[in-house]
């Protein structure tokens, strides 16, 4: 690792102050320390914010406000999360290992970077995300785990988080604070598509700190699923994942939330599928049609065409499961 300074922040405003001048905020370190050791990142200063805001509180409006420093395990095992937003618990426990979940913070989870192996190969591969304009070796190389939706000529990487897929489905709100003050960012706007600037991954301004993530009240979330498909039974990143919540009335879809993981540069909220579903019969045919509506624009690469069919089937299976379980 390149030498750096380390400081612990005891309050958000102190963290923002310490973070001025290009420091990186350090949460659980499960991704950032790895990236620094692999030389993908070389910050001159780390500000440890893992001790900040570890509370999970219910607001007057019925939201759940989750401090950015809350560890993944703590979020997954929280009673209100388990009953009101089981897909959040499910998404967390589907990710990484227990040790990593004990370390990783909610804020850090949003900041995870792609697992593209060309991105990681600082010495030997070209990557526009690491070195803008350099070129992308993934496009013509091993890209089984890469994007089928929303990719660009510059970048075909995927976002690796499980939790973020659930948050995308729930319309979470990200609370941030920077030198210019505090603001909120709707989750759907937080992660960016790669476009011409795949090095820019989030809507955060330089120096802005994630303080909390808010889960708005959403009754149908109590009836929700997260299903992850991967190459071994545990401790592997998603090939495809599906987060969904569903309410059926009189045999028709009354309300639905659907998001996909492992398919794009950001957690993918399936708006097209949702639009196709509302009012449609709660049947496998509808579910497959909705999946098709979402995947119509999917573009396969050399190794990942299977993801389109896999996503289609998994979406339909999750929705069928929710429907049969009495949505």
């Amino acid at each position, binding site marked *: *690792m390149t*030498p*750096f*300074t*380390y400081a612990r922040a005891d309050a958000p405003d102190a963290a923002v102050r310490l973070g001025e001048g290009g420091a990186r905020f*350090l949460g*659980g*370190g*499960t991704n950032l*320390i*790895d990236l620094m*050791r*692999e030389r993908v990142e070389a910050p001159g200063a*780390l500000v*440890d914010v*893992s001790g900040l805001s570890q509370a999970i509180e219910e607001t007057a409006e019925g939201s759940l406000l989750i401090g950015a420093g809350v560890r993944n*395990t703590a979020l*997954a*095992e929280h009673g209100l999360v*388990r*009953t009101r937003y*089981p897909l959040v*618990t*499910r998404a967390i*426990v*589907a990710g*990484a*290992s*227990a*040790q*990593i979940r*004990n*370390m990783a913070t909610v804020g850090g989870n949003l900041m995870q970077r792609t697992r593209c192996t060309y991105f990681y190969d600082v010495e030997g591969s070209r990557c526009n995300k690491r070195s803008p304009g350099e070129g992308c070796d993934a496009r013509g190389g091993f890209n089984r785990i890469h994007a089928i939706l929303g990719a660009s000529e510059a970048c075909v990487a995927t976002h690796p988080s499980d939790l973020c897929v659930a948050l995308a489905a729930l319309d979470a709100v990200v609370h941030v604070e920077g030198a210019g003050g505090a603001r909120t960012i709707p989750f759907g706007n937080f992660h960016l598509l790669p476009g011409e600037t795949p090095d820019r991954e989030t809507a955060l301004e330089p120096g802005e700190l994630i303080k909390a993530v808010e889960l708005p009240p959403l009754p149908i979330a109590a009836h929700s699923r997260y299903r992850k498909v991967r190459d071994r*039974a*545990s*401790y592997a990143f998603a090939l495809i994942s599906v987060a969904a919540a569903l309410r059926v009335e009189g045999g028709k879809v009354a309300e639905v939330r659907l998001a996909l993981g492992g398919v794009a540069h950001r957690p993918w909220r399936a708006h097209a599928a949702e639009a196709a579903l509302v009012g449609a019969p709660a049947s496998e045919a509808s579910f497959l049609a909705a999946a098709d509506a979402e995947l119509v624009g999917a573009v396969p690469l050399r190794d990942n065409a299977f993801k389109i069919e896999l996503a289609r089937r998994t979406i339909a299976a999750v929705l069928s499961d929710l429907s049969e379980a009495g949505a």
Partner: protein
Amino acid sequence: MALIVNGIEAPPPADPRVSLLDFLREHLHLTGTKVGCNQGACGACTVIVDGRRVLSCLTLAVQADGASVTTIEGLGTPTALHPLQAAFVEHDGLQCGYCTPGQICSAVAMVEELRRGVPSNVTADVAAQAIAATREELRERMSGNLCRCGAHNGIIAAIEDAFGLETAA
């Protein structure tokens, strides 16, 4: 400030780059904690920090300043083994022995998580407060600890035995 390692205070390293793993191994010569990947992918470096199992390779030693760290050396010694250590020997939950300290530290903390009711990816009802210790639960919860020799069956048997877990396959 200091780290408290197996009950003994140790001042943090001057170089913040030093991982908790290298701090234990190179500075304190506690080499029972193993390095298998240094990238959070194998679990060999698992230690218990303030009661939680974590990866010492992805923890900076300075981050653990003020925390209480338990390593394999803090659980037992060859002549006074922790019950789980003894069960690993009895059930042959090891071959080369390299992933073993991580497996053991992980399992000790895992059982606490299970008793606390932390759900896992194979838990049928995540809303349930109590979770049955099925063999599948143990396997899922230990999946962050790789073993290349293939001692998996013995490891699970040792955990069941040492903690008196009645599991169903």
